[in-house]
């Protein structure tokens, strides 16, 4: 369009100048450009009758996995001497091979196929369509159109592979699982002794205790192992997201949440997810691979956002989670979140907080200087204060510098259960 206008203006200027100056040679100068324009208009493309179909190598994949997008355009109209097709690649996708733009000539009835490879980040993507611009061979008379070529791609977060980790909620469910249930019965770990009852296996009799009290027989009890309810809570509040060089701390929180969901579901637990930020996204608790897929999809659509309602943890509805179940909060946390967590703990929830470290994440992208160092120390002191508050309330805490492997950090922090935690667990 621009080129056509430019040439038209030049032709008009030359002609007007020639007429005004009564100089026929100026008019002669306009002839080649006018002829060029005439050629373009004579061969201008007719209304476009194109149809596009799109296929992707998969409709759902893990973040960072290359996906091939194939497009086929069929011309149901007249010959298009020059046609440029450009697929509108949704934001968040990176083209790593070939190009979403394609230029060619397209005869009537012919089909043009091209592919390109993208590397998408986590998210739900809708392909919008293909922009087409067709022109004459000289590229002046343009005709544009936007063709529908719907496509959907779900890119799930890639979980870390985690080793097994023990949780100890106060209440467990009825089915056998890996979580110690705080109830005597059949199991492997010694729980206590009680008076023998008919039907107890003889090998469970505690002969040493029975020998001390000849009138009564005592039987060993073992701790029952059950599955538990685990509620994952993902903090998607914008104010807790830190962005450095286009990378986001929130993405690490997402991957950590996905990994924990995988871990707990592999152990047979019943897992639900509550993501809160701009709005609440609640994934009802469930079991198994289907539930894992549901959680991954919820994590794929999670975006950091702000809302006045969920700005404070105060308004997060914990009724979603069964009483005395295990809650896992993935959040960088701030000082004002502490009272709410203490209240949850007081209500009997077993709390595990995974705290991605926003300070080291942000400082890694800054030039080292005295003010930066001072700020780091102040912020670390504030974080230490929150840490102390959580630990005093018996809340398990994992401080995670996201450049370190999550599995290593998790087991480093929770591998050895500290004395204070054992004490708080056994109090109930």
């Amino acid at each position, binding site marked *: 369009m621009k080129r056509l206008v430019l040439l038209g203006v030049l032709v008009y200027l030359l002609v007007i100048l020639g*007429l005004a100056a009564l100089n026929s040679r100026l008019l*002669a*100068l306009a002839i080649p450009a006018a002829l*060029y324009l005439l050629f373009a208009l004579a061969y201008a493309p007719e209304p476009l009758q194109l149809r596009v179909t799109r296929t992707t190598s998969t409709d759902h994949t893990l973040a960072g996995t290359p996906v091939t997008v194939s497009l086929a355009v069929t011309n149901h109209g007249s010959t298009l001497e020059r046609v440029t097709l450009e697929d509108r690649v949704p934001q968040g996708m990176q083209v790593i091979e070939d190009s979403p733009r394609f230029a060619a000539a397209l005869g009537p009835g012919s089909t043009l196929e091209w592919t390109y490879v993208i590397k998408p980040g986590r998210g739900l993507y809708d392909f919008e369509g293909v922009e087409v611009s067709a022109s004459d061979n*000289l590229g002046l008379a343009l005709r544009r159109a936007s063709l529908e070529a719907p496509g959907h791609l779900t890119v799930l977060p890639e979980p870390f592979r985690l080793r097994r980790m023990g949780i100890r909620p106060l209440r467990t469910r009825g089915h056998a699982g890996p979580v110690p249930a705080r109830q005597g019965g059949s199991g492997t770990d010694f729980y206590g002794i009680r008076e023998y009852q008919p039907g107890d296996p003889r090998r469970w009799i505690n002969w040493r205790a029975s020998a001390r009290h000849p009138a009564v027989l005592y039987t060993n009890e073992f701790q029952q192992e059950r599955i538990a309810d685990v509620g994952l809570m993902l903090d998607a509040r914008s104010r807790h997201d830190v962005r450095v060089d286009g990378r986001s701390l929130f993405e690490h929180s997402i991957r950590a949440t996905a990994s924990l969901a995988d871990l707990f579901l592999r152990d047979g637990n019943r897992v639900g997810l509550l993501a809160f930020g701009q709005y609440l996204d609640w994934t009802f608790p469930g079991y198994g691979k289907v539930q894992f897929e549901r959680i991954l999809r919820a994590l794929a659509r999670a975006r950091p956002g702000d809302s006045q309602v969920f700005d404070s943890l105060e308004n997060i509805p914990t009724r979603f989670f069964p009483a005395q179940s295990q809650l896992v909060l993935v959040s960088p946390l701030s000082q004002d979140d502490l009272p709410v967590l203490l209240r949850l703990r007081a209500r009997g929830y077993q709390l595990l907080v995974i705290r991605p470290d926003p300070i080291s994440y942000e400082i890694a992208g800054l030039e080292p200087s005295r003010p930066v160092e001072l700020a780091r120390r102040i912020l670390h002191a504030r974080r230490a204060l929150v840490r102390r508050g959580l630990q005093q309330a018996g809340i398990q805490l994992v401080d995670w510098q996201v450049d370190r492997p999550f599995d290593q950090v998790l087991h480093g922090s929770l591998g050895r259960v500290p004395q204070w935690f054992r004490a708080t667990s056994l109090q109930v």
Partner: protein
Amino acid sequence: MQGPVRGGGAQALDMLGVASIVVSCGALAAGYALAGWSIASGLPAAIGALWLVFRKRNSTRVGDIGLIAATGAAAVGVMLDAGAAWMLVGLVAALTAWDLEAFGRWLQDCPIADEARALQRTHLQRLLVADLLGLGLGLLALQLRMRLRLSVLVLLGAVLAIGLSRVVRYLRRQAE
């Protein structure tokens, strides 16, 4: 599929573009110099040099500015009674260089080498026809001498106005 075409065809197109700029500015400069405007002949030469330097930027604006400058130089040359034929040759060559730049840029999006070569051939054929016809008719027009009466001038003005309204209507339809 591969990336943008950077084969022998693209190189030939590049060389043709450079040659067109050289011919355009050379013809304009020669026209000025032969008419005795030796100092003014530096202007087209400077335009050509700048065009050659900036064309590597692969920007549409360079070609556009080059064409506008060359057209302006040709118009001024004609008004200064420099050789009109030289000016005409310079303008046609500038038009060719402008076209080849845009075409080369468009062709980069064609990843199939055979297809690119075929497109290039077709384009050059049409461009050659347009150039030769334009040059021929232009030179013929330079030879013609006719006295324009007021009525003819009015008629030409009317044709211009109608043409302009057509172009505006066409552009508006395109924008919709």
